[in-house]
């Protein structure tokens, strides 16, 4: 192989290899298949050279060298398998084991422990250490994190990931010498942090373990199911560790998802809502004013009969549907089809947590302008307007931090709060709450009512942005309607290709909008007003579509225009801040709710249908960036049913059966007909996140205020699901002001 300017040729164990210049020797060796062992070396974190496991021989260098710190040099001759190297590894392991308790039979890490593996491969069979071991009792750092001092090998991965990658630095190094230990940040010996569990996951041994998992099972006794997380809109892949139909924890050690190894507390530990004792397991029917258990047949029969009756009597315009931010694309699609074709109403909406429709409108004809989550970590410049990604979008915040830390990306923030990402920001412009649209106008140079000082800061920001190229623009729910188009108008004139991410709250917020759970939009943001489009969908669905836009969520909830309201996977009473009375919803004759729990809305219902969670069904989610991922069923739902099944059964009971028999069939129809969703099935099946990019081709109509708003969940809340997660409810940081983080 010839040596180009950017590659270096060296010899590893007699084999000549070519690697890019600047490569660390340990990575170069790995690329040849010669694994050089290490504990402290961890790609993406600062170098330590502390564990000394990666010592190798380099010709013409007198001492063994740490492969993790040596940068490859042309002509370097490296040996990784000499007796001297083997001896050094054995010695290091002997040193490491002196104070290690060797409690592998009861250690949570047993079977997936890097120390075990290393000793198995490189270690000595016996120990010469007969002295008393250093010991300290195990400590509970937080409701999530336990620290078992004797097991710790002090590789400092946890300390580095917490500091460098999470920018929390809740874990530190205390004492020195053989007494060195990991310490938590509160004076009382507990943690105040984001409880992300990264430290636990990255720990090569059983020193850091989670309360949720510890002493529950052995790694080989579980099933592992990789599926998108059920919580926020980022779409992290979590590998659910399941035993006896119960999720014990999530992690992502294989790093295959868009999130790599990252997960927050929700992805790791908040799968526990699935087995919360208050989980609804059978349909409830209101009898004599009380919600009482009923059979599925009875409940569905009741719903079909009354819904049909009301539709007939008062007309389809008196029936409304509120969809969900956490049901699958297929379910949302089926609901849209059911509402519009079977019931014949456009009264269809959901809690919109970002104005995806406005963005799709503003980007008409330019699908490449959607940024994927991974694009953020490689971005050179980022503009964030509104939102608090640390809390609302932990993965995107991680990606932003990593772009700044590893590639020197420039982050610009316009926000009404001093959010934690300000620590990474090159410039933060603090604006009064609710003035996001005005700030965007100020970026345009238009007159606004914000203070002169702030306008000056925005002018500086604008000047800085004009020097950047390929900016990624993120905006929260604070920016909606025409403000979205104005933001796009401003930023599309910046150098390079500007790309966008609208920040929606939940696992399938984007999917709900993409699938047309909107009163004026068909799937793929196709305008209802456009006769041609309507006709296309009438052909697809084989039914006539009402042409008049329906009522939006607020009109449905407050306008007293409905006689029947059908709610799926959402809790409008709480979300829209309504009094907890049936009257507050108007003169409804029928209220149906699909839910996992008896929410404030479900309590008021005539029929409550117990629904399966995202971990109990198949289908697809689209994350807030527009990346489609396939769900894999991790749990047997038992007596509850998926929303897909419920809607389908309802269509049967109604007498107009929907032809889509399965989630797969529904997705195929989505692929065929929803603009931007013609994604590769093969990639999806392989577990990849596939970008979709629906664009309406129509400028967005202005969105009325009050429709697009974020629930502003923190790291420790997650809408209805979060209220039933013991893990999320257990952490003390939940009650702290956000500025503490």
């Amino acid at each position, binding site marked *: 192989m010839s040596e180009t300017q950017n590659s270096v040729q060296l010899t590893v164990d007699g084999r000549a290899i070519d690697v890019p210049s600047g490569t660390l020797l340990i990575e170069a060796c790995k690329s040849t298949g010669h694994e050089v062992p290490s504990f402290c070396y961890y790609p993406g974190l600062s170098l330590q050279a502390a564990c000394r496991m990666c010592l190798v021989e380099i010709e013409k260098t007198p001492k063994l060298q740490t492969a993790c710190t040596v940068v490859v040099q042309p002509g370097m001759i490296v040996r990784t398998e000499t007796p001297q190297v083997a001896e*050094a590894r054995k*010695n290091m392991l002997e040193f490491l084991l002196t104070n290690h308790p060797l409690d592998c039979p009861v250690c949570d890490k047993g079977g997936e422990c890097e120390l075990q593996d290393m000793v198995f491969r490189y270690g000595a069979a016996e120990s010469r250490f007969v002295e008393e071991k250093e010991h300290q009792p195990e400590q509970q750092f937080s409701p999530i994190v336990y620290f078992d001092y004797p097991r710790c090998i002090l590789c400092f991965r946890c300390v580095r990931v917490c500091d460098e990658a999470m920018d929390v630095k809740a874990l*530190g190094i205390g004492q020195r010498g*053989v007494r060195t230990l990991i310490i938590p940040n509160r004076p009382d010996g507990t943690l105040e942090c984001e409880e992300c569990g990264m430290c636990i996951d990255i720990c090569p041994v059983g020193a850091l373990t989670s309360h949720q998992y510890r002493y529950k099972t052995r790694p080989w006794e579980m099933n592992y199911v990789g599926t998108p997380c059920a919580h926020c809109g980022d779409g992290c892949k979590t590998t659910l560790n399941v035993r006896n139909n119960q999720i014990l924890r999530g992690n992502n050690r294989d790093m295959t998802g868009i999130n790599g190894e990252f997960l927050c507390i929700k992805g790791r530990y908040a799968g526990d809502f699935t087995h919360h004792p208050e989980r609804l397991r059978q349909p409830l029917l209101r009898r004599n004013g009380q919600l009482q258990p009923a059979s599925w047949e009875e409940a569905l029969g009741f719903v079909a009969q009354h819904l049909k009756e009301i539709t007939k009597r008062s007309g389809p315009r008196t029936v409304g549907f509120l969809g969900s931010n956490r049901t699958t694309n297929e379910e949302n699609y089926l609901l849209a089809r059911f509402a519009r074709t079977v019931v014949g109403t456009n009264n269809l909406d959901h809690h919109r947590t970002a104005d995806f429709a406005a963005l799709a409108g503003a980007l008409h004809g330019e699908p490449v302008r959607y940024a994927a989550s991974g694009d953020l970590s490689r971005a050179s410049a980022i503009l964030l307007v509104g939102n608090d990604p640390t809390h609302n979008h932990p993965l995107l915040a991680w990606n932003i931090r990593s772009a700044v830390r590893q590639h020197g990306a420039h982050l610009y923030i316009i926000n009404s709060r001093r959010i934690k990402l300000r620590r990474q920001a090159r410039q933060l412009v603090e604006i009064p709450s609710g003035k996001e649209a005005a700030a965007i106008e100020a970026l345009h140079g238009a007159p606004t009512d914000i203070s002169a000082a702030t306008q000056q800061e925005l002018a500086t920001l604008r000047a800085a942005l004009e020097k950047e190229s390929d900016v990624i623009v993120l905006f929260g729910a604070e920016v909606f309607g025409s403000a979205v188009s104005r933001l796009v108008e401003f930023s599309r004139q910046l150098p390079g290709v500007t790309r966008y991410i609208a920040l929606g709250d939940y696992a399938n917020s984007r999917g709900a909008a993409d699938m047309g759970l909107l009163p004026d939009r068909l799937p793929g943001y196709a305008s209802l007003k456009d006769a041609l489009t309507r006709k296309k969908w009438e052909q697809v669905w084989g039914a006539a579509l009402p042409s008049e836009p329906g009522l939006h969520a607020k009109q449905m909830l407050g306008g007293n225009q409905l006689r029947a309201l059908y709610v799926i996977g959402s809790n409008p009473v709480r979300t829209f801040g309504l009094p907890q009375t049936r009257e507050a919803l108007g003169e409804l004759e029928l209220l149906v709710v699909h839910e996992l729990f008896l929410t404030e809305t479900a309590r008021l219902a005539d029929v409550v249908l117990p629904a399966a969670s995202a971990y109990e069904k198949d289908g697809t989610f689209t994350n807030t960036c527009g990346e489609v991922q396939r769900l894999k069923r991790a749990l047997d739902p038992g007596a509850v049913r998926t929303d897909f099944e419920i809607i389908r059964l309802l269509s049967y009971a109604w007498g107009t059966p929907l032809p889509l028999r399965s989630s797969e069939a529904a997705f195929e129809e989505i692929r065929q007909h929803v603009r931007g969703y013609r994604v590769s099935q093969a990639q999806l099946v392989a577990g990849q996140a596939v970008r979709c990019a629906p664009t309406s081709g129509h400028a967005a109509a202005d969105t009325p205020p009050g429709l697009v708003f974020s629930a502003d969940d923190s790291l420790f809340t997650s809408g209805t699901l979060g209220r039933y997660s013991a893990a999320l409810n257990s952490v003390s940081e939940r009650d702290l002001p956000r500025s503490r983080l």
Partner: protein
Amino acid sequence: MALQLSPELRKKFESLKQRYPRQRSALIPMLLFAQDELGCVPDQLVDYLADDLDLRRMEVEEVISYYSMLRRRPAGRYHLQVCTNVSCLLRGGKQILDQVQRHCGVPPKTATDDGLFSYEEVECIGACTGAPAMQVNYDYYENLTPQSLNELLDQLQLGNTPSPTRQTTDFLKQQKPHSAEVRVVGRRFGLRNSAALTTYLKHDGYQGLEKALKEMTPEQILEEVKRSNLRGRGGAGFPAGMKWGFVPKDTDKPKYIIANADESEPGTCKDRALMEHDPHQLIEGLVIAARVVNAHQGYIYIRGEYRYVMEILDRAIAEAYERNYLGKNILGSGFDFDLCTHTGAGAYECGEESALMESLEGKRGYPRIRPPFPAVVGLYGCPTVINNVETLSSVPAIILKGGEWYADLGSERNGGTRLFCISGHVNRPGLYELPMGFPLRRMIEEVAGGMRDGKKCKAVIPGGSSVPVLTADQLDTPMDFDSVAKAGSMLGSGAVIVMDEDTCMVEVAQRIAQFYAHESCGWCIPCREGTAWLRKVLDRFHSGGGRTQDIPLLKELAQNMLGKTFCPLGDAAAMPIISFVDKFRHEFEEHLRTGECPFSRDAAAVATPL
């Protein structure tokens, strides 16, 4: 409870924060000065400093728990810090510790009920030629005997603080130089008010600087230092001129110069004397070195225990500023240089140059990955020259009298003189400035007055506790870097520790292992675990629990550490142990045979818990 800080302390905080390009550097001094006032570091102070320096709380906590002088719980009004390291051990340090322990009657680092006393066993405090010694708070009391200790404790009990006794440095004022001595860096030691600028100026003071600034180019200065064969006096013996030559010339970054005054190698107390008696000589050396590399800011990183020395230095620096030997446009040359002191807080590892820079940046004293070396990427990521105090103190004479003159004082490739710290079982322990290459035997027999009580010499540690021990039949070794290396050891820091025939070599090895176990920073596995393991085996061995296989085990463990640790501390711990096992194996075997220490009447009392 709200945090109460005196106005003086707040003022001190403000001035500390001004000293550095990054405020975090002030953290360790701020902690130590606040602790002096508050008795310890309370939670509120942690929060206050984190807030004041824009750090996360954890960053402050990490620092506190690294440095042995910083404490989270209050000590007694008189904190008795008894050194039991080798030089003190040889002269009764353990008995002093026992006596202090009995007097206090509480566990270490715990205040007595009346709040008056607390104590702890400490590592070498740089009073080796005045051994045994202890510090009461920052005051030195040396040459202690059971009687003098009793008197001292009685006085303290009454609330009186007797004047410190600094035998190590007072010795230089009281004694005339030995006829074999060649005083270069020590030539002002005997003068009245030797630390004062006026004294300094009367005796060639700042003339080297004037010459360097007015008559020489930086290149010429560098050449002169190269010609002098001046080698680093900290321990490694690296040629000073070559080190300065590594500093890149074409860089936009500021450059720094640091005097390493973190003297902590057991047996070594020379820098303390140099700074106490002749602070201006160090300042002058620093300015000249700064001129060579074009640095405009210098720091003297001084170990926290040397508080009174730092105060002397601070006064000298203020005098030098007044007379424009520091500051802007020094002596009209157009050259600017600022200098200040920086206190450590108890960590041997911070004598390692890269760990020192971490510490100076307000962090735990962990060594850095090298390359890059400090000359290119040092303090604050900028090119940095760092030299030992004695090295820098030698520079003014070299410039004034010429490199050749200096080189000729010593032996081949080992220019000049060296301040040897002769401690242990000799009649006149002390600091003596002798030409490089001076024979070890004469050093003991003539200069230091011969062996105490007419005993025979059994062994000598020629360069601080980290070097291999020499046996009595190696006393003809000339004391320069190359000759001592040829004899299988190292000249190191010039700490010559002499041991007589009654010395238990297992106990000395144990005490050395105890030191490195205490001072290992814990960063890398072989040092962290290896030093602790060695210490545990030797503790057990010396107290009668040895096994036959322990003897080869000790050597193998040390060899497994050697050359594999992150920084030289691992080697420093391993080398002496290997040499003790090799050269005094029979004494180890004797312990095994008798089941107790053949040299001690009270063997079990030797191993005191850390």
